[in-house]
């Protein structure tokens, strides 16, 4: 039984508890003391936080004890500081004691108490924040400063001793984050000076007692600092413009006014006048501008314009701007731009661009004259091409690519100093492409034709390639020697060849010897001079030598027919002959063979006349007629000249002929001919001439060409004066002429035959040897030009010296090179 009772007790207890739990009611939770604070060290309050409710209304009681006393007191005032608080008034507050405070929560079921809290009054002092913060700004003497005022925190009990608080103030501009804290001291007002104008500031204050903590910051107060008040800055006049030279407008840039309202006025005066006017119209041209209409615009006067800016603080004036209306003209852009496509006579199309001047400009009366300029570029292009058009209002454009789009703009300017207008709005040009097709056709035709031509050319080339090559690159010709027939050589007929060479019969017969004889040369100058010429035979000399006689190089004196004595004699000629001989020889390049002639002249002659030599040369030159026809001719000419010269010794007027015979060989021949006439005439007068009759038969024959055949040379055996001269004729055609006789001891002389009379009389040209005249030579020019030069020399020599000068060279240069006939231009 007992056991059953004992075991049922806990069961019963559990049942009781659960019934209690089921109904939700229990004893209260533990409260908690939050804070204890004293405002002024004389009173303090504590606040607690209640614990869980427990479902039933709770009662809270606060118990405290002092220091180490045992007595427990209850809170005197639950109401003053609000709910769940306890207020200890002055009577219950002792700053020197430590309070131990607990709070107990009680309800029907049970109670619960908080942890005890030790409170020391002095350590929990914290005043309230100050109140009634007010702000003011004051501006004096360009400085604005802030004045802040506040009141200390209110106390529950009006205490007799006014507590001394320390205050602190902080402020910041509204937008910024950082506070600037200022320690104020114990006063309840403060002035802040370093404030920026125009900024809104936020201010807060807090206080503190001697000991304890700072109070909370008071609520924020904000204030706007007003902006600085300054007089305005200087305005600036930007520009003045006149669109048509009848009115004008000026614009200015306003001055910053420091927040204050600024008013601008424009003032102007004219040159020479003192009176100042104000702008007549501020509105027409927009803000910050002044419009001068026709009435107010004067020409040929300078305006002095200024702008004044005024505000509360003062005013400011801009710099003066001097304006003469004539020079500020900037017209409007041209209008009515039109394009027209025209076709010229040649069916070439071009564009005509026309425009009108701006409407306001009075171009018609000539008040304003405008010049235009246009610019254009292809649509995709970068650079504009600017074209100055002048005063005309149209422009023709030719050089535009068909098919492209162009942009064109025009602007204008007054013809005098002024400004260019704005560019007109862009104008697009589309070039038609109609003439493209024609181009293509033309090119196709050209292509077809050229290809045809190429085909033909190539065909021709193929067919006649060889001939073309021959035409283009002719074969190198072999040497052509006059008189030598290659074929003859090839065929090998020596006889013909030799006859061609002028050698009758080969091997050389006696005739050849005679030929050789005839080619004897007379040397009339010293060895020295002669040698070099011998040593350096010219090419031409060689050629001629080759033609005529290979043997005749040095030959004259070496030929057996010649008397060596004479050669030496010839060499021993007076030195007067030498220099000019040398000259002539050098000119001729040393035709050694021909230069020297063994003196056919006789030893009887005291002075070996050059004539004799000349006659040798003449004859020598004359003989090989075929190949040396040319030379013969020339030498004939020369011979004529020489004869002329020789005969000139007698009479000076004869020299004239030489002077005249400058131009060419032909005239030379003529003049020689003429002179010959004269000479012959002269000769007539001289009776101490040789008995050889001299006749002038050639008068009639004035042909410039001397028939060499007529002027064959004959070998004359000169005989003594008392004897009749005998002639040994050696005509080319006539071989083996009868010899009339020889005069031994006489040298063979050569004289020119003028005619044959009556078939038995030879008319010879006189030979001056008999006259014992001093040998006079003239320098004989080799070329046609040289004659001219030497003619000049001759001329001088005529006037100054004897003709001997002229003749010297003659003797040496009787032989004419073919090269010498080539004019050598200097």
């Amino acid at each position: 039984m007992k056991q059953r009772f004992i075991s049922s007790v806990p069961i019963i207890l559990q049942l009781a508890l659960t019934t209690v739990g089921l109904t939700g009611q229990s004893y209260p939770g533990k409260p908690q003391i939050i804070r204890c604070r004293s405002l002024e060290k004389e009173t303090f309050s504590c606040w607690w936080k209640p614990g869980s409710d427990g479902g039933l209304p709770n009662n809270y009681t606060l118990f405290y004890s002092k220091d180490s006393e045992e007595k427990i007191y209850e809170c005197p005032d639950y109401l003053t500081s609000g709910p769940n608080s306890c207020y200890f008034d002055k009577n219950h507050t002792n700053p020197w004691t430590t309070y131990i405070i607990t709070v107990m929560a009680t309800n029907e079921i049970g109670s619960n108490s908080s942890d005890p809290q030790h409170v020391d009054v002095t350590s929990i002092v914290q005043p309230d924040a100050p109140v009634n913060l007010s702000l003011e700004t004051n501006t004096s003497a360009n400085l604005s400063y802030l004045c802040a005022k506040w009141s200390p925190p209110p106390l529950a009990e009006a205490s007799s001793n006014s507590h001394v608080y320390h205050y602190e103030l902080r402020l910041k501009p509204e937008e910024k984050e950082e506070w600037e804290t200022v320690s104020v001291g114990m006063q309840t007002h403060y002035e802040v000076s370093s404030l920026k104008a125009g900024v809104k500031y936020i201010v807060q204050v807090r206080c503190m007692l001697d000991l304890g903590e700072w109070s909370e910051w008071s609520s924020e107060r904000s204030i706007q600092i007003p902006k600085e008040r300054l007089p305005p800055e200087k305005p600036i006049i930007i520009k003045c413009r006149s669109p048509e030279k009848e009115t004008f407008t000026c614009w200015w840039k306003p001055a910053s006014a420091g927040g204050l309202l600024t008013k601008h006025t424009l003032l102007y005066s004219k040159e020479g006048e003192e009176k100042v006017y104000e702008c007549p119209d501020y509105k027409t041209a927009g803000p910050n501008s002044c419009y001068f209409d026709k009435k107010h615009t004067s020409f040929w006067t300078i305006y002095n314009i200024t702008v004044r800016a005024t505000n509360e603080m003062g005013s400011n004036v801009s710099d003066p701007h001097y304006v003469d209306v004539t020079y500020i003209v900037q017209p409007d852009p041209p209008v009515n731009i039109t394009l027209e496509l025209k076709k010229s006579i040649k069916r070439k199309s071009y564009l005509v661009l026309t425009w009108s001047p701006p409407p306001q400009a009075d171009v018609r009366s000539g008040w304003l004259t405008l010049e235009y300029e246009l610019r254009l570029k292809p649509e995709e292009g970068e650079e504009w091409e600017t074209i100055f058009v002048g005063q005309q209002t149209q422009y023709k454009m030719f050089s535009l690519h068909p098919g492209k789009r162009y942009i064109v703009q025009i602007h204008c300017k007054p013809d005098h100093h002024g400004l260019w207008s704005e560019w007109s709005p862009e104008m697009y040009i589309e070039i038609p492409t109609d003439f493209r097709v024609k181009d293509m056709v033309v090119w196709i035709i050209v292509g077809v034709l050229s290809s045809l031509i190429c085909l033909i050319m190539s065909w021709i080339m193929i067919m006649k390639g060889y001939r073309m090559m021959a035409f283009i690159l002719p074969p190198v010709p072999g040497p052509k020697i006059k008189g030598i027939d290659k074929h003859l050589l090839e065929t090998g007929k020596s006889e013909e060849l030799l006859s061609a060479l002028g050698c009758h019969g080969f091997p050389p017969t006696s005739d050849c010897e005679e030929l050789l004889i005839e080619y004897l040369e007379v040397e009339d100058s010293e060895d020295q001079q002669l040698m070099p010429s011998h040593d350096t035979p010219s090419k031409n000399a060689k050629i001629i030598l080759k033609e005529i006689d290979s043997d005749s190089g040095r030959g004259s004196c070496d030929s057996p027919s010649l008397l060596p004595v004479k050669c030496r004699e010839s060499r021993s000629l007076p030195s007067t002959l030498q220099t000019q001989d040398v000259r002539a020889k050098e000119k001729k390049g040393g035709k050694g063979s021909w230069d020297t002639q063994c003196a056919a002249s006789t030893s009887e002659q005291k002075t070996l006349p050059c004539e004799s030599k000349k006659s040798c040369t003449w004859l020598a030159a004359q003989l090989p007629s075929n190949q040396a026809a040319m030379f013969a001719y020339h030498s004939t000419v020369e011979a004529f000249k020489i004869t002329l010269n020789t005969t000139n010794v007698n009479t000076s007027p004869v020299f004239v002929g030489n002077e005249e015979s400058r131009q060419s060989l032909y005239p030379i021949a003529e003049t020689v001919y003429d002179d010959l006439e004269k000479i012959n005439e002269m000769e007539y007068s001289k009776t101490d001439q040789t008995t050889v009759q001299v006749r002038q038969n050639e008068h009639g024959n004035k042909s410039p060409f001397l028939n060499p055949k007529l002027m064959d040379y004959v070998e004359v055996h000169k005989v003594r004066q008392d004897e009749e001269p005998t002639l040994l004729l050696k005509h080319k055609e006539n071989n083996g002429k009868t010899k009339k006789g020889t005069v031994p001891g006489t040298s063979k002389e050569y004289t020119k035959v003028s005619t044959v009379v009556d078939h038995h009389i030879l008319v010879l040209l006189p030979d001056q040897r008999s006259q014992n005249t001093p040998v006079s030579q003239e320098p004989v020019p080799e070329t046609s030009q040289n004659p001219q030069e030497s003619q000049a020399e001759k001329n001088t020599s005529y006037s100054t010296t004897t003709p001997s000068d002229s003749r010297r060279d003659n003797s040496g240069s009787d032989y004419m090179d073919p090269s010498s006939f080539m004019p050598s231009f200097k």
Partner: protein
Amino acid sequence: MNTRGASLKGLLLAALLVSHMLLTKEGVTSMPICPNGSVNCQLSLEELFDRAVKLSHYIHYLSSEMFNEFDERYAQGRGFIAKAVNSCHTASLTTPEDKEQAQQIHHEDLLNLILGVLRSWNDPLIHLASEVQRIKEAPETILWKAVEIEEQNKRLLEGMEKIVGRV
């Protein structure tokens, strides 16, 4: 004045050719209608006016350049132009005020006005040219321009007198 004018005309005719050559040398473009050296050549009035206009533009260009240079170098903002503008000795000559007046004024009066202006500038320019030569520190450009202006003023005067004689 008339007799002198008559003799001047002959002189001017010769001077015209000279000045024509001078004008072209100066870079003032003009169309040479008269070949050089021909004496009986007469330029059209339009051509004469055209030349006068170009010449006066040239003079204006020279003088404004010269003033700007002087102002920059020596005046340094002392406002010489104010004094210059207000004390211009030709300001007393009454010129037409605006377009209407200019179109109504008799052309003889206008031309005489022009001659008056040019003549009254003759002496001061001569003075300027000679004085400026003596200033050693003056830059070459100012010197040259002063002399040039004086010369061109004379040319212009001649040209205008020629025009007056023809009109």
